[in-house]
């Protein structure tokens, strides 16, 4: 009974670490990706930034998330002569990696909005920010919602990579329990069910978002 309570506490802690890494990395990734996607779209007010953002997405997408975590945890602190907590380094690396994909999704979503919508905003005297905020992004969101939620789901699964630098997130917690109890089946089933539960919540959120766009097309 004591062991069950202890393991439940460990699992709750692991879930909390996973959820925290996932939420922080998702928020940073969405923020950076949305800004870069808007700046690099076809009708950007700053087209000269497109090249630099292209290099950014090439680098973030081209290096595996695992390697980025190792660089963020081992290389960058030694180069800068500072200490970076493992959670910060790994979560930052995941956000960096994911932001490249989000940039591409947002850019493609914006570019898929018909050119006529931009022209209509122009003749009606909309500023770039009004055009983006009131007309283009709400329509682009309908285009890119499935891909953005897919990226969030991918990010959730990538949080298991935090285990590689010793952070006791959900997967690492399970591995620790298995090493003590030597009974992997129920532990791995429990871990898989928890990830599935998170994914189910994401899918429900996606359905709600898509429901909001019904009738507009």
């Amino acid at each position, binding site marked *: 009974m004591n062991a069950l309570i202890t393991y439940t506490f460990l699992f709750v802690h692991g879930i909390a670490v996973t959820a925290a890494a996932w939420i922080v990395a998702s928020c940073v990734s969405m923020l950076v990706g949305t800004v870069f996607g808007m700046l690099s779209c076809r009708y950007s007010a700053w087209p000269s930034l497109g090249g630099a953002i292209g290099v950014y997405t090439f680098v973030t997408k081209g290096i595996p998330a695992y390697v980025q975590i190792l660089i963020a945890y081992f290389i960058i602190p030694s180069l800068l002569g500072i200490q970076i907590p493992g959670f910060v380094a790994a979560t930052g690396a995941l956000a960096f990696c994911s932001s490249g994909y989000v940039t591409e999704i947002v850019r493609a979503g914006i570019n898929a909005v*018909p050119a006529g*919508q931009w022209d*209509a905003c*122009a*003749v*009606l005297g*909309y500023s770039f920010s009004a055009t983006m905020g009131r007309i283009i992004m709400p*329509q682009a969101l309908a285009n890119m919602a499935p891909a953005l939620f897919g990226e969030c789901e991918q990010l959730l699964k990538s949080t298991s990579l935090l285990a590689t630098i010793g952070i006791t997130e959900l997967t690492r917690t399970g591995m620790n329990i298995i090493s003590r109890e030597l009974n992997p089946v129920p532990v791995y089933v429990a871990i898989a069910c928890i990830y599935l539960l998170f994914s189910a919540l994401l899918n429900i959120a996606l359905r709600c978002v898509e429901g909001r766009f019904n009738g507009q097309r």
Partner: protein
Amino acid sequence: MVSVKNLTVYAKNQRVLDAISCTLVPGRITCFMGKSGAGKTTLLKSLVQLIPIAAGEITINDRTAHALSPQERATMIGYVFQQFNLFSNLTVLENCIDPLIVKGVARADALAKAKEILEKLGMREYADSYPSALSGGQQQRVAIARALCLQPQVLLLDEPTASLDPINTDILIALLRTLLIDGLIIGVSSQDMDFVRKIFDRVYYLESGRITEFCDGLGNLDNCPALRAFL
């Protein structure tokens, strides 16, 4: 009055408008006719600066168009696209009030103005519909309503009958004549011969980016051989 002098426009290194000069006067419908690719749409788009001009001058009621801010220009010139380009994420009413809100008009005033104009155009009952639920004729009336909400002095319509049936074309003609009473300057590009015959007022005929004929009134058509042949 809108005055265009020696307007020249290039697109992809091709001269699409070649030193065009014309006027649009209040209370009249000025129609730009010609075959596809003659430059009608380019001319209208260059009037609202959707296409940059290479040379020439556009003045609207004695103000140089290029000195106007986007907001000032939007308030002076209303533009109705061939494909209407209604905002698909907004309802009919929101399509009409949004430009007013962006302009800085209070929401209550914007709502009152939009409802008044939708009523005038017979679209009040569709206020809560999304554009995708409307027919082509209805979408066009909403597009006109959206343009009129900003109370422009000039209304430009690009190929307004391209996706309309004869009944909706007649409704549009009646609507344009109603708007003329308020002294609006109306400019229309069209290659619809029936439509132009019905509204014949001031007609410029364009060919390969140049104005080759101008006919003021149907009675003067004898002096415009190209236009007569086209009609």
